[in-house]
């Protein structure tokens, strides 16, 4: 029954745009509102956009070989953007109270019905218009109070775009096969007694996005995402509790190699299990290697996030903004060297595969209806461009088609597929040799190999602390797991401190957290060298407190 329902829903949304009831309702309600929505003596809206997303998803979760959740979710939600003023100065990008951190959003009927869809848009538009009128006057008062002279505008000039995708034939998803696979994979953890708790979640979702704006742009796109996420909890020998997760994300379940994913989960489980007994570290200053996920996150947290999300919105309580918005920190370095000269970076959302591997950050049109092209970001170490949406900033007068945003968040500039290329490459073994030699030169007993770092940083640090890290003994060349530790003062300097990179590249697919606190996640890919050698990192013993070990033994291993 459930399966039938999902198939019906997908089929129900397949006609071309001229027959698409939802899109037609959006366009007609748009026309009515842009021409008629006005309070006597008050300004009319000059810009309106509607976004409606249909989502059909299947979620199954298992622990130690047993299913714990097995659910379908079908939803249709939408948001509205209504602006008063003009492109140079309008009611957007201003936060005067807590509710302003998220867009106006509502649930829509899951069935295609012209009147029912228009009714929800009518209510959203009415709320949006009234809110925009007030916001415009508040923003204007703020500008005057702060005597702000540097006004860069609120909406770029863009040509209208029509982009209607033909619905792809989504292959039949064998629910039972994947359910059985999740059970099987979650059973792997029965072998690893140091792991206290584990869950394996599988999610398959199909997303249809529809968008119209009052400038004549409209689009309809289809996408899907298949992901497997593994969650673990371990308390190491010293008593530190570590909660960690690892994601495997693809554009389609057909792209996933279940046997390979199973092996990777097995490796992850073994590695985490083995990290139970780690060697303490007092203070380390010296070279380090970041490998695999750690390399991907190194580039994301230090670089990609810090050239995204610009500009930050104005806020009445400016000092609070840092708690609710992830403010980028590299945007003022345009034209400056941020990487060594052998590193260049570009973003190209138009490609969907790299060496046969899915790139989850791909898209044909951004969420504001701007078509992307290949974007050169760093050339020979120098920052040439940052991501931009339709919010102008200083010399940025045009969007570079990186306006991205879920329904829970305002659109902000965000990465698609980030290609980080290096001209100074070596084999992995050569890099290890280099690392050891650097350690020898500095009279160190060991050097660092970091394989996984936290996805989020704490205490205003720029980068998450190590989750899986090793001391590499210079004499024996043996890797010894490291006890819980913290980076001490890693800054943007680390980007320039990249000494060399692997000649192998990895695809790091992940879901980027949006900058607004209320935000969701944006599928993103980083294609970067598999290993990077950094000249110097500082690592110290963690300041976190240990926790008492469990009173009883794990019943399964008892």
């Amino acid at each position, binding site marked *: 029954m459930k399966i039938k329902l999902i198939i019906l829903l997908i089929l129900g949304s397949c006609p071309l745009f001229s027959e698409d009831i939802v899109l037609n309702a959006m366009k007609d309600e748009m026309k009515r509102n842009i021409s008629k929505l006005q309070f006597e003596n008050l300004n009319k809206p000059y810009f309106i956009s509607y976004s409606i997303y249909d989502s059909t998803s299947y979620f199954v979760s298992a622990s130690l070989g047993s299913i714990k959740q097995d659910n379908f979710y079908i939803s249709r939600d939408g948001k509205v953007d209504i602006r008063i003023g003009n492109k140079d100065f309008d009611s957007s990008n201003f936060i005067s109270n807590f509710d302003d951190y998220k867009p106006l959003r509502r649930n829509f009927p899951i069935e295609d019905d012209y009147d029912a869809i228009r009714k929800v848009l009518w209510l959203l538009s009415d709320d949006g218009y009234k809110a925009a009128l007030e916001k415009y006057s508040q923003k204007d008062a703020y500008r005057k109070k702060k005597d702000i002279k540097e006004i860069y505008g609120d909406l770029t000039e863009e040509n209208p775009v029509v982009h209607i995708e033909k619905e792809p034939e989504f292959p039949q998803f064998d629910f039972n096969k994947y359910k059985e696979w999740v059970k099987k994979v979650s059973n792997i953890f029965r072998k690893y007694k140091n792991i206290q708790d584990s869950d394996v979640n599988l999610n398959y979702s199909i997303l249809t996005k529809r968008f119209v704006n009052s400038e004549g742009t409209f689009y309809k796109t289809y996408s899907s995402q298949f992901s497997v996420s593994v969650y673990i909890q371990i308390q190491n020998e010293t008593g530190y509790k570590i909660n960690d997760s690892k994601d495997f994300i693809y554009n389609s379940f057909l792209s996933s190699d279940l046997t390979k994913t199973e092996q990777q989960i097995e490796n992850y489980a073994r590695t985490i299990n083995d990290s139970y007994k780690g060697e303490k570290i007092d203070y380390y200053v010296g070279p380090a290697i970041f490998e695999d996920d750690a390399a991907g996150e190194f580039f994301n947290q230090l670089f990609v996030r810090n050239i995204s999300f610009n500009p930050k919105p104005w806020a009445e309580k400016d000092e609070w903004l840092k708690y609710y918005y992830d403010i980028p920190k590299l945007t003022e370095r345009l034209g400056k060297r941020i990487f060594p000269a052998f590193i260049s970076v570009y973003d190209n959302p138009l490609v969907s595969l790299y060496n046969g591997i899915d790139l989850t950050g791909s898209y044909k049109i951004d969420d504001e209806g701007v078509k992307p092209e290949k974007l050169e970001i760093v050339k020979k170490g120098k920052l040439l461009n940052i991501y931009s949406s339709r919010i102008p900033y200083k010399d940025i007068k045009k969007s570079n088609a990186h306006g991205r945003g879920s329904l829970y968040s305002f659109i902000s500039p965000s990465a698609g597929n980030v290609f980080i290329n290096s001209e100074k490459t070596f084999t992995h073994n050569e890099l290890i040799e280099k690392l050891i030699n650097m350690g020898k030169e500095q009279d160190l007993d060991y050097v660092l190999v970091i394989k996984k770092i936290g996805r989020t940083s704490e205490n205003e640090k720029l980068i998450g602390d190590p989750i899986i890290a090793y001391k590499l003994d210079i004499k024996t060349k043996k890797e010894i797991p490291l006890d819980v530790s913290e980076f001490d003062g890693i800054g943007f300097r680390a980007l320039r401190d990249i000494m060399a990179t692997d000649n192998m590249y990895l695809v790091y697919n992940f879901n980027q957290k949006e900058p607004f606190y209320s935000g969701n996640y944006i599928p993103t890919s980083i294609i970067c060298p598999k290993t990077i050698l950094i000249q110097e990192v500082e690592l110290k013993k963690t300041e976190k407190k240990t926790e008492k070990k469990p009173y*009883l033994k794990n*019943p399964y291993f008892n």
Partner: protein
Amino acid sequence: MKGILVGLSFLLSQNLYCEEYNKDALLESMSEELTRSYQNLKNAEKSPLYFIQYEAWDEKSFWISSNLGVINNEDESAQITLSADIRIGNRHLDNTHEIKGKEGRNWEANSKEIETIIAPFNDKDAIKVKLWNLTDRAYKDALNKYLKVEMNKQVTAEEEDKSGDFTDEKTTDNFYERAKELKFDKEKIRKILKSLSLKFKKYDFILDSQISFIYTNENRYIVNSDGAKIVTGNNYGLISFSLSARTTDGMDLSRYKTYSFDSQDKMPTQDLISLDIDKTIDELKTTISSPIQEPFSGPAILENRAAAVFWHEIFGHRVEGHRQKSESEGQTFAKKIGEKIMPDFLTIYDDPNIYDFQGQFLRGYYKYDDEGVKAQRAVLVENGILKGFLMQRVPLEKFPSSNGHGRRSEGNMTVARQGNLIVESKNRVPYQKLRELLIEEIKKSNKPYGLIIKDIAGGFTITERSLPQSYTVLVLYALRVYPDGRPDEPVRGFNMIGTPLQTFQKIIYSGDDEDVFNGTCGAESGWVPVSAVSPSLLFSEIETEKVEKSNEKQPILKPPYFDK
């Protein structure tokens, strides 16, 4: 012949009991891990663990909603949630003891929130590993809290009620009765909802409307170190519709109606709901153009269903046992046992064992509470005299035992809650007579009019000592009744307010028209299904206040399908 049949069915049910009982992986794993945890943890530290309980909520639910003739949303889920309750110390003083004084003002100090986890289905090993983790965290938290309690007790003033933290009784029942999941014809339900929701489309003054169907099959599992092993379940079906409008002066008005049932054959018919929708739309339409009720004091009738909510909010919450001993509570009734607190024609009790009232299913029906205590009738007021309280396993000086009212939803500690609150009156008159008596009261009190409160959204009552001990009943639909025979006039924009002891004394008659309020009540221990039954009540005097307005203007444009 009858005797043989009875005997046979008894044997059959016994066999069924044993078979299901023995193959229930969830129950077995809870029971085995509880035994292991209790044996090994009871003396693991200097402060002894003296009681442990696991509770699991095995819930399956689905929800369909419709708006303007189309399906708005549809959802289905199945999940088992687990929680662990651990008591450190002894029955006189344990980790659940209230923290008082300055420390007690910390939000977390007396929080009733507890951790829950989602359990795997049907695999004992997997369930036990989750329970082991949960128990370890709960045990450490309990030890930590107990140390704080011990010191707080020494540095703060002595409590008035010294009856301890946990009752002496042992809950040792073994009971297995899972509620079977009901099968509904979903296609038929979709069709009915779509047809009914289309009715709202004809009216341009309706801002928003929805009709929904929600079904939950809930089976609760309780095992504890006293020896209780209980599996008990309920089915909860709910159809509800809601509609809203906005007045020109910026007041948001809404109406809703719910229908509760626990089996397919008790579902309301489409015709019945359809008639109710028509009636509610008419009433909302007349309310939009009705005058705002200025603050008023005078005679009023609270109609049966609204009166049932009134009792639930204003009386029921104040006779919850834990409120009689908490030093932060108003304790309105704590010292009034044996005293007259309301007119002597009123008797009130709470009995979760009552399955229905005049054929109407009661949502507050259950067999065992969340502490494994068998549900019992709690006599609260007899002929106007306060007789008792709703009790969980937290004793009071004169009430050392639970009467099976310890309730909660997932993620919260148990407190005493209502089940089926039943109000009986000896001063019953037919409704028409009650109306005549209202007019007499209006004349007697020289008021220009009285009020009939026909529908309410609910209400709330403040029981904390730091705030006024008042209540508020949120009125949705009411009429002014004029003594000179003018037609009744709808009014809007007011709440009924007051303090309980004073208000009860103003009840002078009741109708003979008892009706049921079925709802879901939220309090410190989460959301629990409840019912209340009451006749209409005539008050010699009530007080009202104006409601807060949204102050939003009406939509600028008409609904799109009216703008052609």
